[in-house]
Structures are given as structure tokens and as C-alpha cells.
């Protein structure tokens, strides 16, 4: 298999990973393909791919609220729904290194790369699996949301490599969640490589914080009828 640079496959603008994967496999030129074929069940990916779209989260949300695939929330219930879901996540998350926050009816979870992936690895380790199982349980109950999984790295090493690593890690988590019953329709995979640091890359602690996967949970809200 030939190694070609990632950018074409995973640009800065969010794209669905499965879409990319299909394109990549068709063209036979995406580095992304390797870990997936090695560590995931191809059948599963095929089933997920059928549900996937090319949209950004915003477009996906708009589309989903009309599609009937997800029962959209009436606007007046959004606050309650997200508050309760957030509290439920608080209750179920035993790992305190996962940063959980709720803002503007959006729940953000920052899962540090450390303790989740081994160095340079893209497979979710045992410790992280139990946390992700708990998260998947809550996401399954609160199924009127979409979940964006975004991978990030520090600035060490090749930009392209980092881009690929972030993508693979986001994919790994997305894959894990879908295995735990989260329908792929609700999942959006994004990869940012080293482009969106949240801490100082010049120090070890900052780099550790930058190596992360972010999960953003957004409600699917019914469009306000004119009545």
C-alpha cells in the first residue's frame, strides 16, 4: 500500500471520516485506511458508512431535525434535557481527568490522549474503554443529540503525521462508541491535528493537554413552527 500525505483526505474543515475512508479506499491513497483495516471490523465500517454524510455538525443537525431519524427536542425542553444529561454524565464518569462542561446547551468532554491511548498508538486502551462505555450508556439514553468527535495533537513531529494521528484517534473513539450502540447518524468525526492547541506547546504539561479527543454533544432541536 502506498503512503500518500493526509491533507487531501482530512482538511481543516470537518469532514465525515467514513466518507473520507470510502473516498480513500476508492482512490487507494489514504494513510487513514491502514489502521482501520487493521484494527476495526470492516463489516462494521461498511454499515456505518451507509449512514454517513459529508456535512459539518451544523448542517448535520439541520438535516437530522427534519429527517425523522432522530426525534427532535421541542425548544422549551432543551435546557432540561441537557442539564439532566450533563448531571447523568457527572454521575457515571469515574475518571476525573476527563474535563466535562456544559455551556449554551452544549456538553463538551475533553478526553486526554494520555491514559486513553498509548504513545503513538491509535487504539483505545482498557482504562479508557470503561469510561467510554459509561459515556455511551448515557448517550444511548439521551439519543436526541449528535456527537462530534474531534481529534487533536501537540506540535511535535510532522504536521501530516499529527493530522493523521488525530484523525485515527478520533476515529478510534467514534468506532468504539458506535460499537456500544450509538447510531453512526449521530456521529461526526473531525480532525484538527496540531492546529487547535488549548495549552502551551512549549512545555510538556501543555503538550499533554493538547493531545486530546474532544466530544461535543449537541441537542437536535425541532424547528420553531410559525404557529
Amino acid at each position, binding site marked *: 500500500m502506498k503512503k500518500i500525505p493526509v491533507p487531501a483526505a482530512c482538511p481543516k474543515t470537518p469532514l465525515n471520516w467514513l466518507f473520507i475512508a470510502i473516498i480513500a479506499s476508492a482512490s487507494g491513497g489514504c494513510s487513514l485506511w491502514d489502521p482501520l483495516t487493521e484494527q476495526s471490523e470492516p463489516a462494521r465500517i461498511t454499515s456505518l458508512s451507509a449512514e454517513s454524510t459529508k456535512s459539518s455538525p451544523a448542517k448535520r443537525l439541520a438535516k437530522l431535525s427534519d429527517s425523522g431519524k432522530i426525534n427532535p427536542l421541542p425548544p422549551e425542553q432543551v*435546557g432540561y434535557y441537557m442539564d*439532566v444529561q450533563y448531571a447523568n454524565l457527572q*454521575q457515571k464518569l469515574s475518571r476525573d481527568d476527563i474535563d466535562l462542561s456544559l455551556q449554551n446547551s452544549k456538553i463538551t468532554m475533553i478526553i486526554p490522549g494520555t491514559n486513553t491511548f498509548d504513545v503513538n498508538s491509535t487504539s483505545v486502551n482498557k482504562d479508557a474503554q470503561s469510561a467510554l462505555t459509561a459515556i455511551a450508556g448515557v448517550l444511548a*439514553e439521551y*439519543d436526541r443529540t449528535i456527537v462530534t468527535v474531534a481529534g487533536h495533537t501537540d506540535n511535535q513531529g510532522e504536521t501530516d503525521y499529527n493530522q493523521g494521528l488525530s484523525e485515527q484517534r478520533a476515529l478510534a473513539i467514534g468506532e468504539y462508541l458506535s460499537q456500544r450502540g450509538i447510531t453512526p447518524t449521530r456521529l461526526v468525526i473531525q480532525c484538527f491535528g496540531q492546529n487547535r492547541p488549548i495549552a502551551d506547546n512549549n512545555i510538556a504539561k501543555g503538550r499533554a493537554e493538547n493531545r486530546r479527543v474532544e466530544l461535543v454533544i449537541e441537542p437536535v432541536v425541532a424547528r420553531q413552527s410559525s404557529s
Partner: protein
Amino acid sequence: MLARRDKIFFGILAVTVLGALALSVLLGWYIWRESVMTEEQRLQQLSQRLGEETEHAIIDARNLLETLNEQATDPCNAAHLAMMQDVAVARPYIRAIGYWRAAERLCGAGFIQGVSFTPPKASRIYDSGEIAWWPSEATEVGGVQLFLMRFGHHDVVIDPRLLLNVDLLEGQMAGLWVEKLPMITTPSNAIFPPLESLKQGMTVNQSTEQMISRFSLGTLLPIDIVAIQPMSEFWKRYLPTLITAAILALLLIPLWVFAVVRYSRQHLSLAAELRDAITRNKLRVNYQPIVDMSDGRCLGAESLARWTRDNGEVVGPDIFIPIAEEAGLATDLARAMLQGILRELGDLLKQCPDLSINLNLSAQDFQTDRLFVHLETELKTAGLATSAIKLEITERALVDSDTARQQIRTLRQQGHLVAIDDFGTGYSSLSYLESFELDALKIDKSFVDAIENQAVTSSVIVHVIEMAKSLKLDIIAEGVECDHQVDWLLSQGVRLGQGYLFSRPLTAHQFIDFHQKYS
């Protein structure tokens, strides 16, 4: 005279009124303080109790939710419904319990059926996953705003009115805050100042005539209880105490007035009687001989005033001298004494020029030169030398030093001898005494008493003697009562003494005899 009497009268009146006023104020202050403290304590205990009940209810509800989460294996079946019903009925403040999936209430139990509260904004989300909505319009049913808590799949609806036991508060305005958020007020439309603006404990707001108390509990949840009552309520509650206080005041004030009147009348009448005794020459003079202790010769005497009232009661000088000074009679007293001495012993003094009689002066005598003018003219009339009358001045009289110093100098220039009396009992220092021109120093009886025997002696008396010597003053020991005191004093070079060892105070006749015997 009238002016003085008026002054005294108004003085007494002022003391009476001020005393009564002070008494009332003190009593009033004390009762007020006691009542406020009692009230504060009462409210604190009440708040503590209400706070604990509230905290217990919230913790209990939380634990209840946890138990229900654990036991609802097959939610909404008959057993689950019965369990929810049981726990709800067992707690008066629980209005409903619900089982939820996400934002959908699937089943539940309690008084308010079929109502699913989904308030848009949680008041608190705890790290352990509890989520709570404080009473608001979003949780209102039948005009009552309810408190909502959800944990996992269950929620509980609490009626906060039942957390604030109104019976205990006896109709006061009260408010309950949990986590600094308002939970309930009674009456429900009561308006409270912002919690942050209230001080801990009880404060009295004079402008609104309200008593505001705030007590906080902070064991597990921060809980604040605020109670507001009008001052009139407070007064009503403590009316019996106030009545008791008023009765006490009514009893005490006449008692005080009576005491003042009685004291002042006694004092005034004694002063008036003393004035009368002085003007009518009814004071007697006694003479305490002063002897040379080495040979027993009588060299003179200290004159002492004696007063026997008309009813035969003997009043001691320790009582009537201060009365005389207070009533401004000291100089009159000294003058009467002088006249008595000259009348009784004038002849003897003329025959024996070496003999001298000591006259005690008070601080008042130095305020004017009235006494000294008399002294000069009367000695001249009697044909006596100025050395016949020695003047004794107490240390206290020397304090107002500048005028006294000038007058003492004048008196000495005229030929009087000046002795300082009761030496050692005041605050004189050597340097201070040095600034006066003096002739003799009388050692106070208390120092002489301290001479136990020749071996053991007070060090103070040694210093006093040394001081007198260095100032070149004659020394007279007062209150000599034992032979060993004489021996010791003589060994220290003190020759002159007076006391019961030599003689008691004598009348003029007795003194003339005594002098004849020891001259």
C-alpha cells in the same frame, strides 16, 4: 452663707436626679440587653432546628433517589410503583416521585400525578450527578413553587412550605435559603432584603422598627434562616420583664432619693451644728505633750480639737475635720483653736518662753491669709512671741505648693516654726520637701509602731530620719508607746517624742500640771 446653702441644695438635687436617672438608664439598658440576648438565643435555637430539619430532608431525599435507582431493576412494574408510593407517603414534604428516561417521565407516585416538571435551567448540578431546581415559576403547581431534585432516573418533588415550620415561628416573617438561593418565605409574598446584606446574628433596625435575625448552618449544605419581626412584637413578648423592671425602678428610685436626702440632711445638720459650736466656742482644746525623750522634760504640746455635741455624743476629729473642710469651716476651726489656746495657756506661755503649742493647719488655711492675719494680731494682743505657736502642716496641704511655699516663707520670717505632720503618709519626695523652708518633721505613728525592738527595725523610718537629718530638720516621733521605741529612737538621734508612753491628750489644767511636773 445663703449662696453656699443654695449651692449645697442644688448639689444635692442634682445628685438625686442624676442618680435616679442613672439608675433608670442602667436598669433599662440591662433589661434591654437581657431581652435582646434572650430573643437572639431563642431565634438561634429555632433557626438551628429549622436548618437541621431542612438539611435532613434534602439529604434524605437524595439518599432516597439513590436507593430507588439501585432497586428499580424492572421500572414501572407494580413493585416499583408501590415502593415509590410508600416512600412518598412516609414523608410529608414529598409531593411526588417520578421515574424518568431522559426527559420523559415514564411513571411515578405521589399527590401531584401526571405533572412532569422540566424547568429550563438547573439551579445546581453536583459533581456526583445530583441536579436540583430551586422553587420557581417553572415548578409551580396550584400557586405553590416546589423544589425539585433528580438523581439518575428518579426525581423527587418537595414542598418547601413544609420545611419552614410556621408554627414554630409564631407568625413571624421568615425565610429559608439553601446554598444562598431562596427556598421559601412565609408569608409567601414577604419581601426580604438581599441575603448578603444581612449580618449574622440579630440586628435591630431602628429606622424600620424591625428586628432582623440571620443564622447560618454550614454542616453539609449552606443553609440560612432569616426572621424579621416588628419591634412591637418584641416588646409584646418581653412585656412581663419590662413591667417587672418598671416596678423595680419605681421601688429603687424612692429608695435612692430617701438615701440621698437622709445622708445630706445628716451631713448638713452636722455641718450647721459644727458651725454653731465654732462660733459659740463650744469646741474644747486638748493638749498632747511633746517631751524630750532623753530626760523626760516637757517642751510643748500639740493642740487637738475635741467636739462634744449638745446631746453628749462625742464626735471624733476623723469625722468633723472633713466636715469642717467641706463646709469651708476649717479656718474658723483653726481660729477658734488658736483663741482657745491663748485663753487657756496664754499665761503659761508668757511665763515659759521656751514652751510652744502646735496648731494644726489645713490646706484651706493657705487659700487666704485670713488665719495668718488673726494669728499675728491675737499673738500681739496676748503679748506673746511668734515662737509660742508652732504650725503643723500635713503633707497633703503642701500639694498646692506655690502659694503654700510663699506663705510658709512669710510665716517663718515672722518667727513661727513650721513642722510637717504625718510625714511619710503622703507623696513627698526629698527634692520636693527641700523646696520648702521647714523646721521640723513629725514621723507618723505607723512608722513608730513598726519599731519592734532595737534589732529589727523598719528600713523606711531609717530613711525618714536620714532625710530629716540631711534637711537639718528637728524630728518629732508621734505615737510613742513603748520603752524600746524610745531606746531605738534615741540611738538614732531622735530626741523629741509624743505618745501615750508620756501622756494621753490632756485638758489645759492637766497640761499645766504636767508641765510643772516635767520642766
